């Protein structure tokens, strides 16, 4: 096979240049700004203040609370979304007459953009639930999004509702790749449903697990749109996630340097957590 350096540069060049300009260079510039104090105005050169922004992060209670909230949210979301996504996939690959139809229905929530989703669900939680609660007298339905707890579960519900369908599609692809011969052999050997699931399906679906866990982990950690539209961090800043905290530091308080420092920390956090997760998961994958 001819490997022509010139052809390679011609084809890959534009993409690499775009990648550098849109991703790498702004990242480096951002790191530079994180060491400065800047109010966002382009006509002034921001003054260099070294590690002050990073030290301030340690003292920043809002950032710490946002981190704890985001971590809790991520753990719950990852578990629930993967469980539901996988169950839906199992359900939909059962060759029922309505399987294809169900597949479409379950995937549809994923098509709605995050911001609109947040507003719609905000109406459901604050309007519909409230009315149901008032009519029936069940306090469970009243006062949603008025405190941190219901705010937390509200966000989880939205996230699960939106992402489960997407994961379902990934798991379907993985499930359909399991050789039927393996499952038939297991049947002949007398394995029941649960044994088959545990010893054949799970290991064979492991690559899909890696991908799905990575997606849910990263997306939950970085969640912004739904956070902004559903609760806007309220009440009292109790449902503010990391991305929203950084956004507010930059745009509401015009403290761009500090926000940039937080963003760098955020990047390192998400990168390291996801890298560890992928590494661990990859080790457990079965090569066919």
């Amino acid at each position, binding site marked *: 096979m001819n490997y022509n350096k010139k052809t390679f540069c*011609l084809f890959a060049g534009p993409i690499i240049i775009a990648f550098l300009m849109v991703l790498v260079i702004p990242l480096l510039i951002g790191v530079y700004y994180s060491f400065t104090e800047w109010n966002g105005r382009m006509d002034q050169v921001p003054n260099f203040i070294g590690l002050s922004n990073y030290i301030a992060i340690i003292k920043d209670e809002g950032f710490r609370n946002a981190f704890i909230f985001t971590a809790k949210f991520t753990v719950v979301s990852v578990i629930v979304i993967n469980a539901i996504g996988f169950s839906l996939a199992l359900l939909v690959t059962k060759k029922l007459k309505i399987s294809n139809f169900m597949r479409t229905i379950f995937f549809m929530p994923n098509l709605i953009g995050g911001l609109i989703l947040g507003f719609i669900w905000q109406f459901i939680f*604050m309007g519909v639930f409230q009315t149901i609660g008032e009519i029936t007298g069940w306090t469970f339905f009243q006062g*949603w999004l008025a405190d941190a707890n219901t705010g937390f579960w509200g966000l989880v519900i939205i996230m699960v509702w939106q992402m489960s369908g997407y994961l379902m599609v990934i798991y379907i692809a993985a499930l359909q790749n399991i050789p039927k011969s393996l499952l038939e052999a297991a049947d002949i050997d007398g394995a029941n449903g649960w044994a088959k699931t545990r010893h054949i399906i799970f290991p064979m679906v492991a690559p899909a697990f890696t991908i799905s866990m990575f997606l849910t982990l990263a997306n939950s950690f970085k969640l912004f749109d739904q956070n902004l539209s559903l609760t806007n961090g309220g*009440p*009292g800043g109790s449902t503010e996630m990391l991305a929203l905290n950084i956004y*507010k530091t930059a745009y*509401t308080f015009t403290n761009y340097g500090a926000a940039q420092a937080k963003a760098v920390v955020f990047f390192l956090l998400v990168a390291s957590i996801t890298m560890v997760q992928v590494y661990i998961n990859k080790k457990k994958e079965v090569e066919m």
Partner: protein
Amino acid sequence: MKNYMKGLMVGGAMLLTACGGGTEQKEEKTVVDIFQFKVEIAEQFDELSQIYMDTHPNIEINIETVGGGDDYGAALRAKMASGNEPTIFNVGGPQDVYDWQDKLVDLSDVELAGKAFDGALSGATLDGKVYGLPFTQEGYGFIYNKELLKKAGIDAKTITSYESLETAVKMLDSKKEELGLEAVFATAGKETWVTGLHYSNVALAQEFGSVFDAYNAKNVEFKYSGGMKKLFDLQIDYGRTPINATDYSTQVERLFSMKKVAMTQQGNWAFGSVKGIDEELAKNIGFLPMPIVGAKENALPVGIPMYWTVNKDLSEAQIKAAKDFLNWMYTSETGKDYVINKFNFIPPYKGFDGDNLQPKDPLAKDIMAFSEAGNTIPWVFMGYPTGWGMETLGVELQKYIDGQITWDEVTETAKASWSESRK
């Protein structure tokens, strides 16, 4: 030979993509992008711009509205950072004018600037130059349902102090059943601008005196903390729960307009929302003052909410088009008609004489009545440090409503944050 053909095709493809982006139609139209904050007029403003475009075919106006409970300031900064800079945008007062200085066109020579009332331009004037043209005059207070108060046997005109308000509220509360009320107040805890900006202004406007004093103050004392707490507690104790989940739509539309509460803190801009739900009710509402014990009790805060500004970093043609449009809005017959009758504004400009150009809705009329009697206090919240009102004070007040912290903790945190920003 084959490689030569491949190279030619690749080269040709790249040329096409380069061209595709570059060539533009010969556009005669000057584009004016408006990024404004008043949600209540969004539809009507669009209509008005259509009318303008019909008579000025070489101008194209695009309007984007962000506001209500959302953070206009943050959205504007995000929009500017994204590179799609608007031609016309809004600033609130000295803090905003300072933040956006290098982007503002000096509007001192615009025809409209000469027609503004005394003092209406001061909030957007820096170093003697006028950078903003006022939208409208607005006022807020406790909007109340006249019929409900009459049924309860309360004469609204006697409510001129905290004591009289408290008595009236207790009276209404005792008659909740027969009046069909869920509670006396609809308190919008979720809207941090209603609590952190407007509510706080009632007390802080009397501490600072003017928006410039607030803007230049290194510290905030909460001089009227006692009175502030009392009035806030009144709204919590007699407010319809859950308070922290009550937003603008709930307080004005679901509760007040549906007659589930007797009063709610809002401004004359809410008239449109009430009218949209119940036209009859909208004719029978008015303002009660928000009395802070120890300060000027019988007064409504009246001020200029936002100023129109023009972006300096755009073309001459766009800047001129922007100035022309703003002038037209407040001086042409069509513009003036819309301003009064569709936007329900109280214009801070001369030239609105004649009965058909006077604000007609009862809320605007009440504001004008309070103004003429001298019973007003200024709007100083545009002089707060950036983000302090909504994100610090508003958030702390939410925690207070929830019972998580005491009033003293609210003021301590708020004071520390103010001083920190003004160091």
